[in-house]
């Protein structure tokens, strides 16, 4: 059991990277997802079609592949064009996760926005509220409540997906645990890593349950 005392601090180092990927991805993908959702509902086909294509590619190919594509793709593109557009490993991971999760969030948000009745827009219009006022003060607060359960799913999946970052050698929790597995010649470090993920998600579930309760003041 003395292993645990030395193992936990090592894994905590990787967990910090995991948390950074998690936090930065949410920070970028939620606003981006909202923007994509709004664009997907555009009246103009020229806006709607490329956005639909983007969403279908993001959801239709593995995130693993997207990480590799952004990291190596940007590197080779930079080589050919002579422009400095290549990503470092960590920013490449954040970029790939953000555009990928934005696509999923966009579809959740779109569903939420479209579930708000036309009457809400009409009432706001009759009261003279502007379009931005209507969206941010009337529609969005109601959307937040409706998309919370589906968003919780995505957020929890994201915690586990962070382990994909190791494909371009970003040493997050799981990569580090695997290294320790080799060093200890035991799968024990992987179990400890599993406990880290589980506890993180348990806390998130509680947080979302709390938020849902908080928003239960109206129907």
């Amino acid at each position, binding site marked *: 059991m003395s292993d645990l005392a030395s193992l936990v601090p090592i894994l905590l180092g990787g967990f910090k990277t995991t948390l950074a990927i998690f936090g930065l991805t949410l920070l970028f993908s939620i606003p981006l997802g909202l923007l994509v959702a709004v664009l997907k509902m555009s009246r103009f086909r020229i806006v709607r079609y490329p956005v639909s294509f983007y969403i279908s590619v993001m959801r239709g190919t593995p995130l693993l592949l997207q990480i590799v594509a952004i990291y190596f793709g940007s590197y080779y593109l930079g080589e050919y064009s002579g422009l400095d557009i290549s990503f470092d490993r960590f920013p490449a991971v954040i970029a790939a996760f953000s555009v990928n999760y934005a696509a999923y969030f966009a579809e959740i948000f779109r569903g939420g926005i479209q579930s708000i009745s036309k*009457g*809400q827009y*009409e*009432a706001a219009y*009759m009261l003279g509220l502007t379009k931005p006022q209507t969206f941010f003060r*009337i529609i969005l607060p109601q959307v937040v409540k409706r998309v919370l359960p589906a968003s919780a799913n995505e957020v929890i999946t994201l915690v586990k997906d962070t382990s994909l970052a190791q494909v371009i050698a970003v040493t997050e929790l799981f990569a580090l645990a695997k290294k320790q597995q080799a060093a200890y010649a035991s799968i024990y470090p992987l179990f400890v890593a599993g406990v880290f993920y589980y506890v993180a998600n348990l806390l998130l579930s509680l947080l979302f349950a709390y938020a849902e309760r908080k928003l239960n003041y*109206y129907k």
Partner: protein
Amino acid sequence: MDMQSEKQPILKVAHVKKSFGRNQVLKDISFDLNAGEVLSIIGPSGSGKSTLLRCITQLETLDSGFVSVNGKDMILAGQTKNGMAKYAQASVLREIRLSTGLVFQNFNLFPHLTVLQNITIAPIRVLGMDRPAARNLGLELLSQMGLENKARAYPCELSGGQQQRVSIARALALQPKVLFFDEPTSALDPELTGEILKVIKSLAEKKMTMVIVTHEMAFARDVADKVLFMDQGVVVEQGTPEFVFGQSENERLQTFLARFSG
């Protein structure tokens, strides 16, 4: 001739036409309404009553015709664009919108806001009223509606009748020149319609100009200065309640009214 001194109707609707695809729902509708008067619009379902209201309140665009509210022209008379009526510029349309209020059949209150916030959001955000003044206005309107103790409640905590009274207060908060009601009691249990009709009657006594689409015939006759009977997109009969409900011998009107007197 002194045209200025002549009394101008506060609401003018002339030759309004509207189609959805190939289905013409409004075929040449005209009426006038003076300030302080109440107009009831009656007619069978699908006669175009609600569409007419939605065209006048700008929730739908009409195809041709003319509308003016409180002396402001919504439609540029005599001008067309691709055969359709040409609307006034956006700022004028907005001004007109702010001078009209609409009470919806299913209330359309904002569920995430308290009763008071539902009423004060427009005065604060649209008119730029300061919060204490808006609050006072909101509380005063609520007490007019007999709901002074519900200011902090959420719409979902209220009965249908109470919700509809809040939505009337919300519409009144912008001090509209003309208030429109789109079947205000149709979504309510029968025992709750009375409280709404009472509120509308008290507004009529205060000389609020109102246009009410309704299926409550007794009420339409009671509260209105003018009644408009619509069927299949045309105004079949219009006049005083005494005329429409008593003297008119129009066959379609008779058939329609017979269904309510049973």
